[in-house]
């Protein structure tokens, strides 16, 4: 259980850090920030890659998890980049 206490600590600290980091975002960047954060949530890919593939069902689940997380990662980063490139000063 000790490991959970430690990781729980990391969790709380990261949420606090996130709240502090982005408490003041100009409204121009609301969409890119959301889209960029969305791409980061594709980190589930790292979790999906270590799933077991013992049975056919488990293999299918792991494959789908990797597939959808990858779509999230690639799609998310590229859309964010496209969007950010449109924003420019005069």
């Amino acid at each position, binding site marked *: 259980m000790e490991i959970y206490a430690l990781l729980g600590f990391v969790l709380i600290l990261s949420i606090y850090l996130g709240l502090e980091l982005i408490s003041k975002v100009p*409204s121009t960047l609301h969409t890119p920030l959301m889209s960029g*954060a969305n791409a*980061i949530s594709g980190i589930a890919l790292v979790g999906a890659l270590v799933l077991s593939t013992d049975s056919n069902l488990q293999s299918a689940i792991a494959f789908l998890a990797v597939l959808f*997380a990858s779509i999230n990662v690639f799609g998310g980063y590229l859309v964010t980049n496209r969007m950010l490139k449109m924003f420019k000063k005069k």
Partner: protein
Amino acid sequence: MSIFEDITAIQNIIYIVASILFISGIKMLGKEDTAVKGNFLSAFAMFIAVLVTIVFIVDPVILLGGILLGAIIGSTIALKVKMTSIPEMVALFNGFGGLATFLIAWSEYNSIPDNYFQYLLVMVTIYIGGVTFTGSLIAYGKLSEKLKVAKTSIVTKIFTTIFYGSILFLIFSILQPLLPALGFNFFTVLLAITLLGGIGFVLPIGGGDMPVVISLLNSFSGIAAAFAGLLLLNNVLIVAGSLVGASGLILTVIMAKAMNRSINNILFVGYASASKASSSEEQGEVSPINVADAFLILESASSVLIIPGYGMAVAQAQHVVRELGELLEENGTEVKYGIHPVAGRMPGHMNVLLAEANVPYDVLAEPDDVNPIMDSVDVAVVIGANDVVNPSATEEPGSPIYGMPIVEVHNAKTVFVLKRSMSSGFAGVQNPLFFKQNTRMLFGDAKESIGGLVSEFKD
């Protein structure tokens, strides 16, 4: 043996490096000058985290195949999508992230959890991931206008009931190991009811409240990833997931504040029940104006403020709006854009549309910047916005939208309202702005009206 231990140590160090890069990346994403670099940094963090994970991969054919296929599908969608469909694209990608965590938790359940805490995490991750998935799909349907279901319809009511039922079933599932054995496979039921519950969570929420829902679902997908990290004892998942959860939460709060409503009210009540208190059925003389007269007033104006709303997005008028702005500037008029945070269907919707039309972002101003100087504005041009410029919010304590921060265009010398008809906005509240003495209504499709003004300027 020792080689494996070394690899694990290296892996953990890389995960820490990736976490730091994610933190810097998301920080830079919050500032205009560094946003592109920030996004690149976070993509690089993702790359090294995935790369170092692949070392331990059990089944390379299946998993690398999954990455490759996902990369092709994701990139194709991202590069082909029109910028105007960005809101629904973000919703869709977000849903896929949720689905991935849902599947991770499912797989972990099949590998039989070692202890009760792990079991609890599996249940919660399945629920958040599943609700994020189907909820985002519904948001996608609503934003792309493929899905039209009324809040009062029986379908909505059935799914809303299933949503509340799914919460109860989640609690039951969490407590299940402590209860006597059951005669049915409760886990399959949980998977199904979670997915159906996600539909019921988003279905009753109206289009105008979508900015809040999208931000919240974004937050959920992060929290689900962080829980999956706890489940798999993976620190980079926890850090990255928490950052996303926090940023989504901040956006949700900003959006709710911009509407002066509680998150609870937006998700579970809606405007319908609040608007009963409204007594303002005030009517009066509406002064319409035609394009030619509007042109004459604009031509002699020295400062113009443009306030876009969802109507501009629907009419796809952003390009002609930019053209009008440029012509006005050539004519010596100072042009600014007043952007309300909840105008449109997602956080920053108007900013994206105007950026797509090449409007530089330094002429985009927030309500707090333009309201103090409103009386020096000669003409305020409201394009398809309604509730965000409704003076009831400041003048009429009984109004359902009273207290909501607005762009106070009624203080400008002249107001043009471009609108298709006299119908009320999303909140269902009559807008006294239309009846003010300094207001002129320019009825018709926003794109045609602005296009008309543009050709008057060119002649």
